[in-house]
């Protein structure tokens, strides 16, 4: 009755295991022979880079957690002890702290890649939404991690962000008290943030596996946004894409290392080297750079609940993006009008980020309001309308056509031949 999996591996040990639990077959299928469109560019490497960053964060975080003490009386000192006394503690902490920034850099580029090439469109909607879930989990994890050193920015960042929930009528205040475990951000808050900061990366890892599983059902998108018509349009993942990804990873890590070794505090705030003081708010509270565009949206709305809803709404529009964009054409390459608006959106995100770092008054407030208005206009009005009005430019019949000039038919002749020299 019981039937073992028919394994193709030669090594008897591998074969024995694989026929009972086909992990080797699965890995071979998903990471060796998995067909990738042969025209993917280096922007497709940021998924792999983000994956590497997650591994780096979990590894450094694990050893840092062995030295860190989640108690308001000693948390700040325990971090300084890591910096001064623990072997390589300075290195591990700087790798971890800057790693958060570089994780977000990779993920933001990954997301904008998806936006430009329409990677969220059918049949990849679930893949995209899982990605948004990962983004949300990352934001929660990064926020709670930033609280742990228990400096002034940690404390007041935690106070401001947890107070966001007090904007909701009736349930708001009980929720905030529940989040705090007290009447202000205090020891119970720090304790639970540490527990959650330890847990969430593993949740992220799980969701990343789902993200990859969903990806491998539809296959990767590509710069032309058209589906591969057959093996002539793809290359096996290994070695073609593994090598390409590895080269991109190395380049990315070089930039990351420059920050870690030569300007480890450039992306941080000096205020966070002042121990937390519940009685004194720093003159200018700013979140880490990767939250700034959303912080600008929060402050742009002159109403408390409205600001909070707009901030969460800025992420919610990403969830429904696959249905907001009515154009059937995936890649911006063939959308002459939308391509320009994409860059307007990218610029808008940068402007919002800059305005979020500035005091919320005068011209900066005005700029943040214009930026917020454009952000929502782009997703909620422009995308649905433009998809109907825009006339896409002509698309090639296949991925191979623009390269081989002969079109899909000629390439189909190569179909029967081995792929090596493709």
């Amino acid at each position, binding site marked *: 009755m019981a039937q073992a999996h028919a394994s193709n591996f030669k090594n008897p040990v591998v074969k024995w295991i694989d026929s009972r639990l086909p992990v080797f077959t699965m890995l071979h299928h998903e990471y060796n022979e998995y067909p990738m469109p042969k025209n993917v560019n280096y922007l497709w490497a940021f998924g792999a880079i983000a994956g590497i960053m997650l591994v780096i964060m979990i590894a450094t975080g694990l050893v840092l957690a062995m030295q860190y003490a989640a108690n308001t009386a000693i948390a700040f000192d325990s971090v300084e002890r890591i910096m001064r006394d623990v072997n390589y503690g300075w290195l591990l902490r700087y790798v971890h702290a800057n790693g958060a920034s570089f994780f977000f850099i990779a993920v933001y580029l990954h997301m904008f890649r998806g936006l430009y090439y329409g990677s969220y469109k059918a049949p990849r909607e679930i893949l995209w939404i899982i990605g948004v879930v990962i983004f949300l989990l990352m934001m929660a994890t990064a926020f709670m991690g930033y609280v742990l050193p228990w400096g002034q920015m940690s404390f007041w960042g935690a106070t401001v962000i947890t107070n966001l929930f007090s904007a909701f009528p009736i349930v708001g205040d009980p929720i905030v008290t529940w*989040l705090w475990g007290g*009447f202000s951000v205090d020891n119970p808050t720090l304790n639970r943030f540490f527990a959650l900061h330890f847990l969430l990366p593993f949740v992220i890892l799980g969701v990343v596996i789902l993200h990859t599983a969903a990806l491998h059902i539809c296959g990767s998108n590509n710069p032309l946004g058209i589906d591969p018509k057959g093996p002539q349009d793809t290359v096996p993942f290994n070695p073609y894409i593994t090598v390409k990804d590895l080269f991109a990873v190395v380049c990315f890590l070089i930039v990351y290392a420059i920050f870690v070794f030569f300007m480890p505090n450039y992306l941080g705030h000096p205020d966070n080297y002042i121990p937390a003081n*519940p009685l004194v708010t720093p003159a200018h509270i700013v979140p880490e750079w990767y939250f700034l565009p959303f912080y600008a949206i929060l402050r742009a709305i002159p*109403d408390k609940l409205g600001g909070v809803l707009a901030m969460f709404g800025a992420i919610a529009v990403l969830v429904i993006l696959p249905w907001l964009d009515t154009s059937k054409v995936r890649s911006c390459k063939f959308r002459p009008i939308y391509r320009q608006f994409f860059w307007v959106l990218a610029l808008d995100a940068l402007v919002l980020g800059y305005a979020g770092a500035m005091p919320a008054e005068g011209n900066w407030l005005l700029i943040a309001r214009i930026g917020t208005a454009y952000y929502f206009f782009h997703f909620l009005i422009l995308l649905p309308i433009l998809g109907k009005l825009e006339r896409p430019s002509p698309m090639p019949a296949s991925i191979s056509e623009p390269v081989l000039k002969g079109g899909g038919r000629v390439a189909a002749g190569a179909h029967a031949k081995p792929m090596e020299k493709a």
Partner: protein
Amino acid sequence: MAETTHPSGTGAHGAPGGDDTSRRDFLYLATGAVGAVGVAAAAWPFIDSMNPAADTLALASIEVDLAPVAEGQSITVTWRGKPVFVRHRTAAEIDAAKKVSLGDLRDPAPDDKRVQKAEWLVVLGVCTHLGCVPLGQKPTDPKGEYDGWFCPCHGSHYDTSGRIRKGPAPANLVVPQYAFLSDNRIRLG
């Protein structure tokens, strides 16, 4: 046995399939409902454990001696982990607070409802926007456009009665529960 796996129940038995189906549906639903209630009940201890613990709730009330605070001065005391502002208001400040017409206020409250003795204003030093501590306690601090407090985080201005006048905060600074024990002594909480 195979028939039992078909909820439609029109089996070869000629049994009263319809009755059997509705009975089965009821049992499924009832089992599911009991299970859901059980899960909710089991989840509650986990959720409630995150609420303030008994020792946190038991934080004693504190007494504040007002005698050293001269007219025009303010002190900050810590109560339940939060700053409490106690301001000994000058006659001009009291006047300014009383003169405001309620129609100009975002969160209308007359000054005499916010104080027990006109010269002593006691409010939580927590901005009702997102919880920063407003400036205005020290003589050198900016006090905002209404001579009360100014929150540097997102620019809320409070007047000499701790009422919100300008900026994103939705409500006045909260007046905590307190009582005068004597002319120069109050108890918070």
